[in-house]
């Protein structure tokens, strides 16, 4: 496996910088993450984080909105700023020799955004358009609404915002969110690619030395949780979502959970794909994934199927989710391990994937898991470990949500 060249460095103000020098690439990528996600939004103002991420790119430092875009384009930077449940993260990549100039622009965005009224008005109308378009994509809407039902506030807030709260948000809300949350304490900067780590850290020290502020407080999250398990929609297919408890990334059992989910849904030989699609032809799209917050996690499962076959699809799917505690085969374990090995090695071909992974590890663990360590962890999981895990965290107390013309019967066998 690869010998990764990873270093970390904490600035005096708390900003954590992690670098990875990669061979055989010409690019460099960064991910800069600040504690400004949905869990820091005031109750009743869901959408503040997404509006901030829209607005931060509408002018910063010496650049107005258009000049900032032009400056990024001239450096050939591919970038996006996205709000998450915990953090708000800027991801970007360009050719490695342009990294210092790119970081200068990034420091403007995080330290000196204009956050002006005129731009705010446009962002707010644009945000409303985005949220309306989600209403037209039932599959996307399903996952948002499923999260809303399975987690509790403030963790269940849609990172995209909501049409209900949007009218309540003004520029002052977004500015306060920025002031409280764009801070170096809790901020993580991951840099990966064809870089000189020492030089780039010194450069960042200079760029971010005036950044100050303490970590923000979590929002109390007093809003009610929706209870309904069906949303009526005039569609050809019924969208089915199922959620249940799992362990988060930082948990010692994480790779047991990861293995269980991969046996269910990793690759085309996985159980859900085989039993629901290949053997019964019930759907085109089906899958399950491990959705992890810092302290808790869920398995989120999705299937889309035409309305008259939806009931059968739901039953077969739940049955497979439950059955994993009946045993897993050596061949299933083996496939998980080889798939993991390939994916980990191929991650080393993408600077963007590595930069994100550095930030994710630091956020969840406060350290970096090397690809070698991940591989060893996965290879150490035995069949009995998966069973023990599945019995401790069974597919029960399910949150089931459907979107379609008719609700389904959800019966949980004892």
């Amino acid at each position, binding site marked *: 496996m690869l010998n990764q060249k990873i270093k970390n460095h904490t600035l005096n103000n708390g900003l954590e910088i992690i670098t990875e020098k990669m061979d*055989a*690439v*010409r*690019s460099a990528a960064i991910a800069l993450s600040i504690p400004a996600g949905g869990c820091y939004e005031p109750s009743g103002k869901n959408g503040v984080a997404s509006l901030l991420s829209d607005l931060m790119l509408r002018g910063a430092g010496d650049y107005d*909105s258009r000049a900032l*875009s*032009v400056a*990024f*384009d*001239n*450096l*050939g*930077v*591919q970038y996006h700023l996205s709000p998450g449940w915990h953090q708000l993260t800027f991801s970007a990549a360009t050719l490695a020799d342009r990294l210092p100039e790119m970081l200068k622009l990034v420091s403007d965005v995080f330290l000196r955004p204009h956050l002006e009224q005129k731009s705010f*008005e*446009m962002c*707010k*109308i*644009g945000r409303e*358009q*985005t949220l*309306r*378009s989600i209403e*037209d994509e039932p*599959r996307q809407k399903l996952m948002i609404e499923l999260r809303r039902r399975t987690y509790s506030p403030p963790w269940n807030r849609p990172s995209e915002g909501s049409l209900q709260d949007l009218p309540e948000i003004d520029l002052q809300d977004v500015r306060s969110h920025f002031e409280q949350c764009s801070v170096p304490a809790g901020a993580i900067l991951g840099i990966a690619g064809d870089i000189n780590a020492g030089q780039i850290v010194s450069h960042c020290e200079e760029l971010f030395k005036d950044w100050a502020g303490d970590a923000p407080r979590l929002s109390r999250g007093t809003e009610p949780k929706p209870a309904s398990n069906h949303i009526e929609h*005039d*569609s*050809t*297919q019924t969208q089915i979502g199922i959620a249940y408890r799992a362990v988060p990334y930082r948990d010692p059992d994480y790779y047991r959970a990861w293995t269980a989910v991969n046996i269910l849904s*990793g*690759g*085309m*030989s*996985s159980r859900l*794909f*085989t039993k629901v699609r*290949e*053997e*019964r*032809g*019930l*759907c*085109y799209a089906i899958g399950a994934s491990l959705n992890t917050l810092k302290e808790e996690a869920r398995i989120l499962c999705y299937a*889309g*199927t*035409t309305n008259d076959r939806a009931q059968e699809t739901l039953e077969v799917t739940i049955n497979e989710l439950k059955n994993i505690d009946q045993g897993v085969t050596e*061949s299933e374990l*083996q*496939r998980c391990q*080889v*798939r993991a*090995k*390939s*994916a980990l*090695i*191929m991650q*080393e*071909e*993408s600077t*963007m994937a590595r930069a994100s992974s550095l930030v994710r590890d630091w956020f969840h663990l406060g350290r970096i898991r090397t690809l070698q360590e991940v591989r060893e962890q996965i290879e150490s999981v035995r069949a009995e470990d998966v069973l023990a895990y599945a019995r401790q965290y069974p597919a029960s107390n399910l949150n089931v949500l459907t979107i379609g013309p008719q609700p389904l019967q959800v019966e949980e066998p004892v």
Partner: protein
Amino acid sequence: MKFEQDRLANGLKIVAELNSKVHSVAFGFFVRTGSRDETDQLSGVSHFLEHMVFKGTDKYSAEDVNRIFDEVGAHYNASTSEEVTLFYAAVLPEYLPVAFEMFSSILYPSLRDDNFKMEKQVILEEIGMYDDMPSFTAYEKLMQVHFAGHPLSRSILGTVESITALKAEQMRAYHESHYLAGNMTLVVAGNVEWSTIVDLSNRYCSHWPAGETARDTSEAHPTGGTLVLPKQGVIQEHIAQMSPAPPSASPLRFAADVLTTIVGDDANSRLYWELVASGRAEAAELSYNDYDGSSGYMTYLTCNPEDVKENLDAISRIYEDVNKNGVTAQELEQTKNKIASRIVLRSERPMGRLSALGNNWIYRKEYRSVQDDLDTLQSLTLQDIDDLLQQYPLGQLSTVAIGPLESLPE
């Protein structure tokens, strides 16, 4: 980086870009069949066949196929377009022989009746899924309206009716007549020796039937049209428009790529600043969709239904201005930087090179390195953009709208 190419006696074309510095190797079989090669009765057969390939052969059952690809950790899949069915995988070099043998075997599947019947259900589900996605439906209907009477108008998925009526023997006959070595190109990129590729293709592909099918690639002469599809439960209006652009073999294609990025990229383009940044539309984009013999500039707009007229008029004004005055030197330079960086970043992974290598060979019988593409891009001038606009001005000839509106405002 080294380029190699060969052609087997049965007509299979092989192109490879070898790079020992990367960790993986990607390969793809580009089969020259898609919806444009079908008839009304066979509508959707190419895409259905793409699914059936994974159902296996007499030697490998469907379960074996899925299991063996997963056993070597392959990142693999397939896709079907109007003109190409592509089967591709990225693997670690030590697993290439297994993944290669598997793909080259299943390209000649058994096409058993029971598999056919089961997979038909999956295809019908896929049609159902896309039916609930207005952006996809808008594209499919736009191709129908814009290329009416031309093979490019055909639906990739087919319809519920054509798929339901399709028989296994029709599919077998279609497979026999189209999966000929002369219709196929094997494209390889990444960490592998050329001798390995030669050995594998000789061993697993040399017995494939020779032959090639003809395809009518005469340029379409669209006359335009408008189709409004009111849809219950959809709250935004989704609009797609098309007008003629240079075909995929035309030297004007580089300019077309740059022009559409200047005018309609998803960020920092003319459409973006006028319509998206201002909050007037959720999306307003222009792309260059190139096909064999005929291509299209495609406009895509999503917005509140009441703003459709104003937004379409704004797009018309932008296109008229570009057609009359061209673009600025500054826009051209900025966009070159943007595209150059995209090319380099995408090319760092072997998988990111497959489609460029394949398309250059299939459509133009040429190899272009990343550096060739960068050089051509840098050499483009304002005169090149003007020449393009002279022959292929931007336009909104054909229109499809899906959403709450019953008709488009005059």
